[in-house]
């Protein structure tokens, strides 16, 4: 690299080993190889993961077949395993989390990128990003000692008396519940949404804002009708990143969700998620069928994640084409 080779060297076809080494020293090939290996290793790990989950769940796959996905009973004693309550719990708690976290996170991101003074925005963002680094067990403890009592004594009775006619807010109040799980997840994923959405919003070209302002749009009209739609794809990406985190979250959820494999319309009822049941029951699983059913649940979670991410991709593609090509 230091002694710049003449152009004649470039033109000559690399025939000899010496020539090859000389080219290697230029770095292109090395960089190509190393980055290729890095990318390939990710694929290899993923493939190996799926292979292990698949081969180690042969027993329940053969015994239950497709009905494993639809079975509502999870009874290790009688050897009956159905995944539906866990799929339900995982999807509903994550959906609940998104329902709370998306408006909150996108709203905060808009404030931080568009309205707050730069210094306040940077400090606040730093603090918010710290939140993302708090271990999930801490969120779980906060959930048990603060959120659950508040829900049990204040929020849930209030919801029951005011909105009790809705099926979501009925039934006995324990505190630990699907609602608690969803709320703890919401708090955990909000930093991701804020942090990524803010970056995306700040990357919107200043010319876009000024184009709107120059036509007599107010600050808010320019933000909501021009800046946010321009950043839409990136904001969605932040939401899906957060969703992936919510789907796989284990510790904090299992501490507040109640760990009861049932399917209930009420958010006051306890639930159970896939990640939580694997963590809780794996060490105590007696018998190959029980153990392998848990492994198959892992496979189900993997498939669920792929399915949801695939749908997310489709949503992005569909909405992008409908609006206009991103510039």
């Amino acid at each position, binding site marked *: 690299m230091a002694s710049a080779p003449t152009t004649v060297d470039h033109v000559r076809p690399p025939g000899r080993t010496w020539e090859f080494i000389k080219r290697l020293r230029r770095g292109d090939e090395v960089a190509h190889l190393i980055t290729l290996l890095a990318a390939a290793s990710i694929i290899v790990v993923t493939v190996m993961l799926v292979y292990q989950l698949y081969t180690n769940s042969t027993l329940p796959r053969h015994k239950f077949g497709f009905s494993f996905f639809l079975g509502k009973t999870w009874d290790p004693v009688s050897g009956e395993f159905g995944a539906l309550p866990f799929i339900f719990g995982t999807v509903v708690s994550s959906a609940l989390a998104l329902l709370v976290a998306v408006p909150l996170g996108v709203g905060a991101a808009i404030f931080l990128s568009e309205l707050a003074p730069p210094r306040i925005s940077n400090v606040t963002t730093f603090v918010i990003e710290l939140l993302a680094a708090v271990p999930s067990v801490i969120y779980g403890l906060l959930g048990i000692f603060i959120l659950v009592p508040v829900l049990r004594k204040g929020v849930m009775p209030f919801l029951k008396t005011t909105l009790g006619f809705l099926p979501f807010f009925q039934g006995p109040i324990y505190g630990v519940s699907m609602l608690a799980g969803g709320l703890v997840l919401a708090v955990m994923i909000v930093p991701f949404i804020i942090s990524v959405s803010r970056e995306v919003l700040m990357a919107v070209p200043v*010319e876009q804002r*000024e*184009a709107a302002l*120059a*036509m007599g749009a107010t600050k808010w009209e320019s933000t909501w009708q021009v800046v946010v739609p321009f950043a839409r794809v990136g904001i969605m990406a932040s939401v899906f990143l957060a969703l992936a985190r919510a789907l796989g979250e284990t510790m904090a959820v299992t501490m507040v969700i109640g760990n009861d494999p049932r399917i209930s319309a009420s958010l006051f009822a306890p639930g159970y998620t896939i990640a939580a049941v694997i963590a809780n029951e794996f060490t105590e699983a007696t018998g190959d069928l029980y153990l392998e059913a848990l492994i198959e649940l892992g496979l189900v979670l993997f498939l669920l994640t792929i399915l949801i991410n695939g749908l997310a991709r489709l949503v992005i593609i569909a909405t992008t084409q409908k609006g*206009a090509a*991103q510039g």
Partner: protein
Amino acid sequence: MVKTTEESRSTARAPATTPAWPSDLKMRATGLDFYYGGRQALYSIGLQILTGRITALIGPSGCGKTTFLRILNRMYETVPHARPEGEVFLDGEDIFSLDVVGLRRRVGMVFQKPNPFPKSIFDNIAYGLRVNGMDRHSTLAEAVERSLRRAALWEEVKDQLHKSAYALSGGQQQRLCIARALAVEPEALLLDEPCSALDPIATAKIEELLFNLKDLCTMVIVTHNMQQAARVADYTGFFLMGRLIEFNKTAVIFKTPARKETEDYITGRFG
């Protein structure tokens, strides 16, 4: 919001008839200084912009011509710590005491880089109209066609109004941006180096367009292309290091400049 705009517009019109303000004058700046934080960017600018004329602002990079332009519709306000001192009038009214949304509605702007929204051609132009309260589709469609015709783009895009604006060429995109600015029928249009990203043919089209728009609105164009100023402008101002060195009819500036700096610049001795 729309109401406020209209209110400020109607109140804005009233003093325009005061006899002190000549009818052929659109805007006037007097003793205008400008600061970015602690750094002074403009020194005591005084300039008159005549109604229905094209005024060009020329000068080397960093001379303050774009800064001056962005004061005229208060677009400098998007930059933190930017601060003007002095007076700018639009039809006899102090622009700094006007409602900024109403002011920008009256004084439109076209930017250096074509900046269409990632929407369809139709929606790009309809945006400003919708923001200003027009939402009936038939009136919108008429206004969109009228604006596109004025910007000499209608014949090229009339069959693809619902295609993305990004599918257009750079020159077409810039004419779309001009059409978008014209849609809200501004009294004055500010153009910030509108051709710097375009090839000569697209540039020629824009220049022809500006010439034809003179009856419709007053224009101020910032350009670092002196031939362009000579071709399109009625009046030209030469800026250097934050000062307005010379301002006169374009022919005078280019043929018999009064100041040595102006002559050096237009003959290409620096800048």
